[in-house]
């Protein structure tokens, strides 16, 4: 017996193939247009503002946004809305603190900026390693999410979806680099926005004709109709209230085929492949570590719904990571060099904020409806699939299939676009800084283009294969949670480097390195502990799962203090650089080398 099909496999597969083919086809248009290194990396900076804003939006809206936000809302309630708010507000912070000066710096990548600002190849090297680290951490959930989505559609092993996305991304990036990516990304924003918005109309109509049940006044999550589900991985479930349901498979190590009854608070382990049938009206047992919450808790802020400890601390730390981490994500920064000047960079960013705001109105609706119509996902722990699961449950027949396929297409677009953007930036840094340099000396001159493009192609493959291996080896952490850790790492490293580098003349290379190391090491230690040994309980768990609140101040303080101690070593051309970063383009001054 198959698990309840959430998506018609035929139309779902067609949707995945269409998105993949369209991505490569549109990408190959760019192939004929991109022939030099600068084309390859940044589309020769000749991309118009609306295209660029759509492309930035398309690249930024990842699996964590398309699938993860709804899953978080389903499990954790209103506090999880800070994720999309933070993803959007991150661009506001980026706009007011770095957008125009960064574009005016004329650098291609973060390490380029670090080097030209601080005249130090050591800073460049540390930045390069961090770009690759953050990029891989962010690629991981994209590949895992792709596997998850493909499994939902076809029942294939998650590895297949991850490999499929990896192959399409490599082909796409190799075909045209950034130029093609710009077209592809712009197309993907509109595909994703349509895919998330259109089904909502039908879902809300179905919901209101069902009497408009209130997700927040629903008691504990309860199966509304009988539902059958197959576990794709072993889970420990805890019953928040007495529950009797049918099981075929292995419970606590013993084979069971028939009804079992759980008392309130009792938990059992269900093995992989176990089929669970919940009769209508059953209070859904929850997969660890999510704990059940009644409707009033779920809809109220700071209730700790879903079992998150210290909600006030966690909320503020998350806000800090998301607000200040966006500017430090490698694939976000590389986009700014495609604006013609600093003024355009600002305007583009403002348009991006509008586009993101439109998109993020929709995922929470899926999360809220999921609490009524798909609470069984809390039993399997696969809350990240709620967006894909809803249409077939609320809109029966071919229309539901069509809507599901549209959502599958959108989800795939999300994996492809974010993964492509990340791979371009990681491969750019790998090929420019880590593969072509003498490790103990300054990097060679950048302009031998034939070799450069060749190295970029090798780097592209490396940039994809490493996180692909990691994604096949590690167990799955929630999509939006892993992404949150990448934000925390970016906020603890590149945010202080960029903000101090742009606004403070006193920053020195020694200060920058010390700050990058302090923030980078402390945040990665927290990330590693959470991913390998977590989640932990109490304050330890809260501090490690949401590290930004202490790692960002640590990095800033270290950077400022060490810079003050090494005051004598402020680079001589800092004044010239400040002119370059801050004077409007219309003023005729020497901006130094470009």
């Amino acid at each position, binding site marked *: 017996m198959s698990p309840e099909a959430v998506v018609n496999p035929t139309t779902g597969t067609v949707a995945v193939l269409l998105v993949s083919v369209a991505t490569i086809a549109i990408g190959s248009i760019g192939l004929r247009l991109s022939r030099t290194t600068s084309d390859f990396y940044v589309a020769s900076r000749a991309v118009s503002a609306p295209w660029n804003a759509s492309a930035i939006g398309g690249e930024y809206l990842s699996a964590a946004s398309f699938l993860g936000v709804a899953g978080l809302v389903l499990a954790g309630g*209103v506090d999880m809305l800070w994720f999309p708010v933070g993803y959007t507000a991150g661009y506001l912070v980026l706009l007011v603190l770095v957008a125009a000066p960064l574009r005016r710096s004329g650098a291609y990548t973060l390490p380029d900026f670090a080097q030209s600002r601080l005249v130090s190849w050591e800073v460049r090297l540390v930045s390069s390693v961090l770009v690759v680290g953050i990029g891989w951490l962010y690629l991981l959930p994209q590949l895992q999410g792709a596997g998850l989505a493909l499994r939902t559609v076809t029942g294939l092993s998650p590895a297949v979806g991850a490999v499929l996305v990896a192959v399409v991304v490599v082909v796409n990036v190799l075909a045209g680099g950034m130029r093609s990516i710009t077209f592809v990304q712009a197309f993907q924003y509109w595909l994703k926005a349509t895919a998330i918005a259109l089904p909502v109309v039908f879902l809300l109509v179905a919901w209101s004709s069902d009497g408009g049940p209130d997700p927040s006044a629903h008691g504990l999550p309860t199966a509304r109709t009988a539902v059958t589900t197959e576990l794709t991985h072993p889970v420990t479930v805890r019953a928040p209230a007495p529950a009797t349901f049918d099981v075929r498979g292995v419970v606590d190590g013993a084979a069971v085929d028939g009804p079992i009854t759980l008392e309130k608070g009792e938990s059992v382990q269900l093995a992989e492949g176990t089929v669970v049938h919940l009769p209508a009206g059953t209070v859904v047992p929850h997969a660890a570590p999510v704990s059940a919450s009644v409707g009033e808790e779920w809809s109220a802020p700071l209730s700790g719904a879903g079992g998150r400890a210290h909600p006030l601390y966690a909320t503020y730390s998350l806000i800090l990571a998301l607000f200040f981490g966006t500017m430090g994500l490698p694939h976000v920064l590389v986009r700014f060099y495609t604006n013609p000047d600093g003024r355009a960079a600002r305007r583009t960013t403002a348009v991006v904020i509008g586009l993101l705001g439109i998109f993020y109105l929709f995922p929470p609706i899926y999360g809220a409806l999921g609490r009524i119509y798909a609470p069984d996902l809390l039993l399997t722990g696969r809350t990240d699939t709620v967006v894909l699961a809803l249409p077939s449950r609320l809109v029966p027949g071919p229309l539901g299939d069509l809507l599901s396929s549209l959502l599958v297409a959108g989800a795939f677009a999300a994996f492809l676009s974010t993964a492509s953007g990340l791979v371009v930036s990681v491969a750019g840094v790998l090929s420019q800084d880590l593969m072509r340099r003498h490790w103990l000396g300054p990097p060679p001159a950048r302009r031998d283009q034939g070799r450069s493009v060749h190295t970029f192609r090798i780097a592209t493959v490396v940039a994809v294969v490493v996180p692909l291996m990691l994604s096949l080896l590690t167990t799955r952490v929630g999509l939006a949670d892993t992404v949150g850790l990448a934000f925390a790492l970016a906020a603890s490293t590149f945010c202080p480097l960029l903000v101090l580098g742009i606004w403070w003349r006193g920053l020195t290379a020694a200060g920058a390195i010390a700050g990058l190391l302090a923030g980078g090491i402390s945040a990665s230690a927290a990330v590693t502990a959470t991913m390998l040994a977590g989640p932990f309980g109490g304050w330890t768990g809260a501090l490690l799962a949401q590290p930004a609140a202490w790692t960002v101040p640590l990095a800033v303080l270290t950077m400022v203090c060490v810079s003050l101690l090494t005051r004598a070593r402020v680079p001589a051309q800092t004044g010239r650089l400040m002119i370059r970063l801050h004077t409007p383009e219309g003023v005729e001054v020497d901006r130094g080398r470009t």
Partner: protein
Amino acid sequence: MGAARTTPRRPVSRDIDEQTDIGEVYMRSLVRNQLRLSVAVLGAFVLSWCSIPLLFAIVPGLRGSRVLGLPLSWLLLGVIVYPVITAVAWWYVKAAERTEQDFSDLVERR
């Protein structure tokens, strides 16, 4: 600055270019004005929106309150926040461009 205005032999942009003392004064004032604008915009946004969790923590009665049938917290964080961020962003873009225009007018005047 007064001296520069009474003997306008050459635009200040030359001073900036040559990094003379007067050029430095203009540059530092531009950077300071832009930074002040950025900090004001960011401060206003962060203080207003990031006080929401604190408000809910201090006044638990607000957590369950409803507006137009929707819980207040969902309305604020799910809907209203986005047009607000967009408006703040657009206002900032205009203000920053004004600052730059004033600076350009000032330093290119002969």
